[in-house]
């Protein structure tokens, strides 16, 4: 029997605002209670008092290299069980969908690992939804490789054939990060990846000029991998890829999305504010998390590297090179909100702006915008009617209180938030 659930006494993030309204769920989807009232003439079977919690769509991470000690780029570890294990643990960060990311690796690795990480619908039992794979590299610029291994990098002299030889199949891939200045990328590779293989092409780890970046976007690229990091810095006569945030040759309807690692380490809060003020609708929070995410300080594996975690920083062992973040996506949302608050000098309106703008925009950067990148904004990243019932309870500081996937409770911070304790009506 399909039950009708009503969550009340809550504030929803909906239509770019915080509104007092109930959330109605049936069959794992968010539904319109008005239609039910007038057409079906029934009321909710089960009602939950949400104790004034803020309800947001579940967070979506488009770039995550591993977590809780597991490394998605490791062929030794790669298995469906491991992926599900991480998918379940990520629900404690409010993440209800993610794209496991594989750093520059050898062809053997790709051909072993890519077929294993299949797309998968999320559930309370199996954790967050797997939205496909993000292959970051190896067709990237050597000078901007960051933590990627030089000997794994490749060039695209033969165009798309070089990519096919390297990766094997694009079947389970959703996003690819490449450097558009490499041979044939703009002319052939990007258009084919977009048109033939339905991939989201992201520009990153690149020395491309703005001009090259624009041609890449016109060729079909739509995302920028961790803006500011692993690209030329903004220069007023040579804006580089950062200049894509204000570029004018693109049609007005083209939105260039850009990932941003807002972990207080990779991006200065002033840079966050700059990007946000210039192009708020394109901002996508990503963790770019390393396997150490969720673990205390120590040394861990990633790809073929050793990483050292110390406080908020993760570096390649023996160097000062940052190699990804260990801030959860929930923390990134909190840091982004704080960055926006810090930038508001008018103390009289700061509370109003916080509650009407900063909270909403920080949450949308981790929900609506990543969903838009993947063209799934009708099902994911939103509390609109018809969308999948992936949502989270947050407190006023945006800490995660509980995570729901497909309408079922997947995680709660304490028993207080267990749905058994919130239930006030049951027609059962």
């Amino acid at each position: 029997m399909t039950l009708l659930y009503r969550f009340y006494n809550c504030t929803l993030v909906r239509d770019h605002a915080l509104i007092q309204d109930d959330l109605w769920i049936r069959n794992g989807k968010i539904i319109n209670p008005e239609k039910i009232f007038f057409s079906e003439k029934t009321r909710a079977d089960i009602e939950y008092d949400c104790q004034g919690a803020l309800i947001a769509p579940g967070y979506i991470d488009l770039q995550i290299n591993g977590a809780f000690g597991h490394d998605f780029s490791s062929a030794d570890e790669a298995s469906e069980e491991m992926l599900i294990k991480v998918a379940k643990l990520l629900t404690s960060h409010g993440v209800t969908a993610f794209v496991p990311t594989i750093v520059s690796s050898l062809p053997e690795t790709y051909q072993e690992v890519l077929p294993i990480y299949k797309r998968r619908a999320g559930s309370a039992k199996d954790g967050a939804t797997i939205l496909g794979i993000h292959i970051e590299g190896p067709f990237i610029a050597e000078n901007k490789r960051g933590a990627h291994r030089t000997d794994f990098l490749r060039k695209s002299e033969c165009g798309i054939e070089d990519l096919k030889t390297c990766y094997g199949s694009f079947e389970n891939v959703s996003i690819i990060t490449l450097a558009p200045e490499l041979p044939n990328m703009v002319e052939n590779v990007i258009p084919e990846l977009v048109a033939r293989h339905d991939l989201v092409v992201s520009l990153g780890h690149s020395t491309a000029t703005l001009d090259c970046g624009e041609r890449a976007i016109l060729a079909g690229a739509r995302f920028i991998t961790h803006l500011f990091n692993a690209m030329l810095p903004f220069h007023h006569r040579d804006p580089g890829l950062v200049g894509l945030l204000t570029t004018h040759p693109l049609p007005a309807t083209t939105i260039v999305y850009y990932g941003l690692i807002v972990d207080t380490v990779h991006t200065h809060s002033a840079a966050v504010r700059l990007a946000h003020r210039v192009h708020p609708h394109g901002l996508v929070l990503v963790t770019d998390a390393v396997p150490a995410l969720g673990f205390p300080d120590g040394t861990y594996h990633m790809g073929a590297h050793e990483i050292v975690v110390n406080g908020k920083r993760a570096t390649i062992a023996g160097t000062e090179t940052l190699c990804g973040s260990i801030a959860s996506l929930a923390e990134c949302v909190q840091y982004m909100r704080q960055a926006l608050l810090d930038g508001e000098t008018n103390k009289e309106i700061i509370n109003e702006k916080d509650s009407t703008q900063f909270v909403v925009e920080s949450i949308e950067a981790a929900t609506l915008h990543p969903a838009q990148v993947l063209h799934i904004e009708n099902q994911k990243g939103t509390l609109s009617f018809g969308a999948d019932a992936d949502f989270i309870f947050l407190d006023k500081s945006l800490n995660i209180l509980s995570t729901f996937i497909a309408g079922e409770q997947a995680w709660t911070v304490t028993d207080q938030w267990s749905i058994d304790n919130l239930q006030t009506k049951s027609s059962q």
Partner: protein
Amino acid sequence: MRLIITKDYSTVSEWGAKYIKKRINDFKPSADRLFILGLPTGSTPIGTYKKLVEFVQAKELSFKYVVTFNMDEYVGLPKDHPESYHSFMWKHLFKHIDIDPNNVHILDGSAPDLIAECEQYEQAIRDHGGIDLFVGGIGPDGHIAFNEPGSSLASRTRIKSLAQDTIAANARFFNNDINQVPKCALTVGVGTVMDAREVMVLISGASKAIALHMAIEAGINHMWTVSALQNHPKFLCICDEDATLELKVKTVKYFKGLMSVHNKSIEEDNKSS
């Protein structure tokens, strides 16, 4: 007629809501004896609905055994159109209260047979034993429900073409595009409202002043259809100061003098009966 004159829109809304609450609670509705309530839409009742919602949330009022019949609905608008009267009632009242959706009746402007829809509506009212309290508003042209000037005072539920003034006034809800505004509506008739055991009309603002004057100080006239209520044995009219601007000073003084009596009708009972 009882004419209640209060200070402003806010007090009209509060008075109206308290009256409805008291009537329902004094009736002590039950599963075998439901309270039948007629309801309007428009900007005037929004404040009253807000107050009723507060009463329900404070557990001072329950709609569990209340049946509602709305006055009207646009023809051709789907139920979930944001400007349909279904949407209005959901947004302002039904989503916030404990009413049983089976007890809610609103004319269906998308029904395949509109005439049958109207006849069935009248039958449904009869089946419920008639309406205990019909709440309404008044248009600037003195219409009650969509009974535009010239409507028969004996009319029943039917399809009405809307007057040009009404269409123009409604354009603001349809992107100011007059072509998008529905031109017809299904509405209860003047006769349908007159059949209710009690009628309460809420009137607020200077724009309604002439209509109020024509309704209660002039003769009964089908050009000002609300005036038919002069013949109703239990007609309660709640208005604010601005709405009295076209009334005779004598009328206003007379009814203001009766306010102490009128206020008793919304007083909470302090002793159990």
